[in-house]
């Protein structure tokens, strides 16, 4: 459990970052998974995170959303410290309710969708609208249908997740997150669990989101997508950010040997 860490200064106001992390670290037992990571995300920025398996990409995303408590450092969402507060000079965990408040602007999409199987596609989208935003059934359904429309699934509204394809499930999951009007969306390998022919429909929805100005952090193995859509690509290895540049630079002129190696391996695997 975390430590009497001193609080880092709040983010500078010069460029209002939606998500900002200073020196975050995370350990699972003796295993150091994240080491002193700095991260900043400007409004409408699309950042793709790449790196070998086990490099800490998911853990970083989960720490930024406080699904995993980070051990050291600080994460700010819209300038508010996430997960901890300063109580008479000591850092303590905040209440779950406070965590909810601070991360309300964050929407999350998971590799394995995690739809609620006992709810229809529409109910998956309206659930939080009703429970959290207190919308009436009618208003929530109208809003939910608009969201499903946006991901091209209005005609599947009444279906249970079990009768949807993987690509459709992931699009419902995106609609579910969008319904809460997030200012930033986190995606953890949103297409890795999909059959190859279903990847495109999900990436198309994400491209549209990016074009509409959504701020996004996307952990992905889809290099083509990253090259086209990302404003910036972050390469992680062994719990650290090794490189962080616009995709043109990062893919064409990798500075570190580790990134060169990673890209070579990827090319070999994807040439045939």
């Amino acid at each position: 459990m975390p430590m009497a860490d001193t609080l880092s200064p709040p983010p500078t106001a010069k460029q209002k970052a939606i998500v900002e992390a200073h020196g975050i670290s995370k350990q699972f037992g003796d295993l150091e998974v994240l080491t002193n990571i700095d991260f900043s995300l400007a409004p409408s920025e699309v950042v793709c995170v790449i790196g070998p398996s086990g490099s800490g990409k998911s853990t970083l995303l989960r720490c930024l959303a406080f699904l995993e408590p980070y051990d050291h450092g600080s994460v700010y969402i819209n300038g508010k410290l996430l997960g901890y507060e300063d109580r008479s000079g000591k850092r303590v965990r905040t209440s779950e309710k406070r965590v909810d408040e601070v991360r309300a602007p964050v929407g999350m999409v998971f590799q394995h969708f995690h739809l609620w199987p006992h709810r229809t596609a529409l109910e998956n989208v309206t659930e939080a609208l009703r429970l959290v935003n207190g919308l009436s059934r009618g208003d929530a359904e109208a809003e939910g249908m608009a969201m499903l429309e946006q991901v091209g699934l209005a005609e599947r509204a009444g279906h249970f997740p079990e009768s949807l394809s993987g690509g459709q499930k992931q699009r419902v999951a995106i609609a579910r997150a969008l319904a809460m009007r997030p200012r930033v969306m986190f995606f953890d390998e949103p297409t890795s669990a999909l059959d190859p022919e279903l990847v495109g429909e999900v990436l198309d929805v994400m491209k549209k989101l990016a074009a509409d100005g959504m701020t996004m952090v996307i952990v992905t193995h889809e290099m083509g997508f990253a090259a086209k859509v990302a404003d910036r690509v972050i390469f992680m290895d062994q719990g650290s950010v090794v490189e962080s540049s616009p995709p043109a630079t990062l893919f064409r002129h990798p500075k570190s040997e580790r990134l060169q190696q990673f890209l070579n391996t990827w090319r070999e695997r994807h040439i045939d």
Partner: protein
Amino acid sequence: MFEILLNHYPVLLKGLTTTLVVSLSAIALGLVLGVLLAFGLTSQYHLVRWPCGLYRSFWRGTPILLQLLLVYYLLPEIGIEIAPISAAILALTLNTAAFQAEIFRSGISHIPAGQIEAARMAGISAWQTRRRIIMPQVFRLTLPPLTNEIITILKNSSLISVIAVTELMRVSEQIASRTFQPLETYLAAALLYLAVNLVLARISAYLERRMTGGLATE
């Protein structure tokens, strides 16, 4: 046997009614307590889990007959005077709550953690996540073991005759000693228990069939 049923049906029915009232009350109250205990057993806090685990161990690990007698004799000791039937309901409730808690705990542990994270990320509170996301699925998942537990409680309710509650078992004993036809009488009682449990099993099977839509496949 049918003669016994015919000749003594008013008392038998009264006994059966008591059996049903006691069992079903205990099951309903035990369900509420069992759900809360299951939340306790799956709490992230050791200090909540630990006493709930202790409770479960005690009520699952001691004979139900002993529990009945303990509740019956303990309450007056601490100045609480309640009717035998209330003591019986209380004891059976406390007992079934432990078993139901374990059934629900197991059900809860089968809900993928990601579903709960998705709810939390949508801003749904931990409590509402339990109420709206977790428990509806848990009830569907655990319907078969839950039905077993209900039937067990109905059968175990025959033990409350020892604290002088005139339920079906005790009524049968009385009829048996009066008519000198123990075999016929007890067969008639068995038939009544069986009938009730068969009805329960049918209701459960019906519910299970109706609730297949949209269950966890992950």
